[in-house]
């Protein structure tokens, strides 16, 4: 059990490492270090005591854990979708393909605490009756892909993976799989296509991966942080986890803080922490400047102006009430000098570049949006461009197979909603409001 000091942290003013709990230890990623904090004891206890999957799922439901990749779907409910007793191979997939701009938490889990992720995936495999797992790792973080391969080899050698884990009769093979540069593969069915050796184009759903995933077999896909949380919940109980956070937002969440901030980095904090407190923890806005705006969960979540985010706590309900979302916890800070028009131009280019091209509204719409914003930034904007941007974005949203189309519309709609004057100024004057005095 944790000491009291850690539990006091649940009052919401300090970091509370669960997924990153080995971070400050020497050789944090080694098997030895993980064993020293009680690692791999939960999977052994579960296998020895033959605890039923139903009971374990119940514990996860009590914990309030929700998918940490962005969708926030309750994990306990998701895991009950896969019939434990169906015959044939079933797969467990970890989505470490974090390409949402501003997201870098999975990288740190893999780098600093890979064995907790491995144990979490093994427990998940036991619960869902899966025999094989893949950790799909973003191609750009190559060194982490290689270090995860090493961690897998260590775990296999110690019999925490493979045939009859710890001699307790449960088999589970886990492999690392690398992407090679495609944001869309973070979408779970695109990721599955990619594991099958294809272009990462999302599948039409239903059928969902729970019944028709890799090679048409039942497959469960969750984010890295979600799996890495499981051993702690098994060790301390679902209620302890739920008590750390606030209602509807159980436990801790890693927020990746980047942009105009003094100390960019990952902060694993109790959910429900006021944004103000996290801003202080991460050293405040850089160069002593004022806060202008924050994207709380990556560009797929709406931007919030300073005045609004300063009144918000970091949990599912509070961010939703503010008109945004927790997303993947990719918190991007922008100071008072930031030109919102140019920033939107870069984000729109990203969605245009990464659209897989399968659905016409997204393929054509993202390019259209980018070209219109580009002409504004080039000083050739027309007064009707703002309405055009809103119109095209709204027509992409909800008309595509996957959520990339919706995501592409989010920054356009939210940037214009909160900073319309800047767009008008740019169109009228052919230059940024931020350059007004120069």
């Amino acid at each position: 059990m944790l000491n009291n000091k850690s539990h006091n942290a649940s009052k919401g003013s300090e970091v509370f490492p669960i997924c990153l709990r080995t971070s400050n230890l020497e050789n944090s990623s080694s098997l030895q270090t993980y064993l020293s904090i009680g690692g791999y004891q939960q999977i052994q206890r579960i296998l020895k005591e033959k605890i039923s999957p139903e009971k374990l799922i119940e514990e996860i439901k009590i914990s309030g854990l929700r998918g940490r990749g962005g969708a926030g779907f309750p994990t306990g409910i998701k895991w009950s979708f896969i019939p434990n007793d169906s015959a044939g191979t079933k797969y467990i997939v970890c989505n470490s393909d974090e390409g949402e701009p501003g997201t870098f938490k999975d990288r740190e889990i893999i780098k600093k605490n890979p064995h907790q992720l491995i144990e979490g995936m093994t427990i998940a495999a036991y619960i869902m009756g899966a025999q094989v797992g893949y950790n799909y790792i973003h191609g750009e973080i190559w060194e982490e892909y290689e270090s995860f391969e090493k961690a897998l080899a260590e775990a296999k050698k110690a019999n925490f993976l493979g045939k009859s884990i710890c001699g307790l009769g449960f088999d589970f093979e886990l492999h690392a799989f690398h992407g090679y540069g495609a944001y869309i593969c973070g979408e779970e069915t695109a990721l599955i296509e990619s594991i099958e050796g294809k272009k990462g184009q999302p599948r039409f759903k239903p059928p969902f991966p729970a019944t028709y995933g890799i090679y048409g077999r039942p497959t469960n896909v969750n984010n890295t942080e979600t799996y890495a949380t499981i051993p702690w919940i098994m060790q301390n109980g679902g209620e302890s986890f739920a008590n750390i956070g606030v209602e509807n937002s159980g436990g801790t969440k890693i927020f990746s803080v980047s942009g105009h901030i003094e100390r960019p980095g990952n902060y694993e904090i109790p959910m429900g922490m006021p944004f103000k407190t996290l801003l202080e923890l991460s050293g405040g806005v850089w160069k002593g400047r004022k806060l202008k705006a924050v994207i709380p969960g990556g560009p797929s979540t709406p931007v919030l102006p300073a005045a609004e985010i300063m009144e918000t706590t970091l949990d599912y309900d509070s961010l939703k009430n503010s008109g945004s979302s927790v997303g993947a916890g990719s918190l991007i800070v922008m100071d008072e000098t930031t030109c919102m028009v140019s920033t939107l131009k870069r984000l729109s280019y990203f969605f245009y570049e990464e659209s897989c091209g399968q659905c016409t509204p997204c393929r054509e719409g993202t390019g259209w949006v980018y070209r219109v914003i580009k002409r504004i930034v080039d000083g050739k904007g027309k007064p009707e461009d703002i309405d055009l941007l809103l119109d095209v974005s709204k027509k992409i949203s909800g008309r595509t197979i996957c959520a990339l189309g919706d995501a592409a519309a989010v920054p356009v709609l939210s940037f214009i909603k909160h900073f319309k004057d800047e767009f008008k100024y740019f169109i009228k004057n052919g230059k940024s409001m931020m350059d007004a005095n120069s």
Partner: protein
Amino acid sequence: MLTETTRKKIDSELKKFPIDQKQSAIIAALQIIQTENGFLTDDLIALAADYLGMPKIAAMEVATFYNMFELKPAGKYKISVCTNISCALREADDIVCHLQKKLNINFNEVTKDSKFSLKESECMGACSGAPLMTINNHKMHEHLTPQKVDQILEELD
């Protein structure tokens, strides 16, 4: 024909998948081949497809879909700079300008001596280290300044 070393590396990847699902190793196979050759040609892509028993067009689809693959000759050192939001906010533009001036090339170009090529990259998922770049896809350099870039390039032969 693929070299024996290449085949061994691909074989090791194939162990991760069911025996009748060799296509699953295509991304890894193309990565291995590109790392050895610097970029992918139609012939190399066809060899990978043959080795995995899949249609050449399916391997070509993969090679053209994932943006870390190079289908044209790249420099001995391919420099990919992230210019997405978190890097842009921390002045990635200065790094890009510095590199373009220093190497006298734009994005998607190769220096005359074929030593360097330059690419603009999307988010690499390491934004606490912004601004950042990778060299030949697999080595990441973080917290860049123009001086640090100079140092890194000097150390490359």
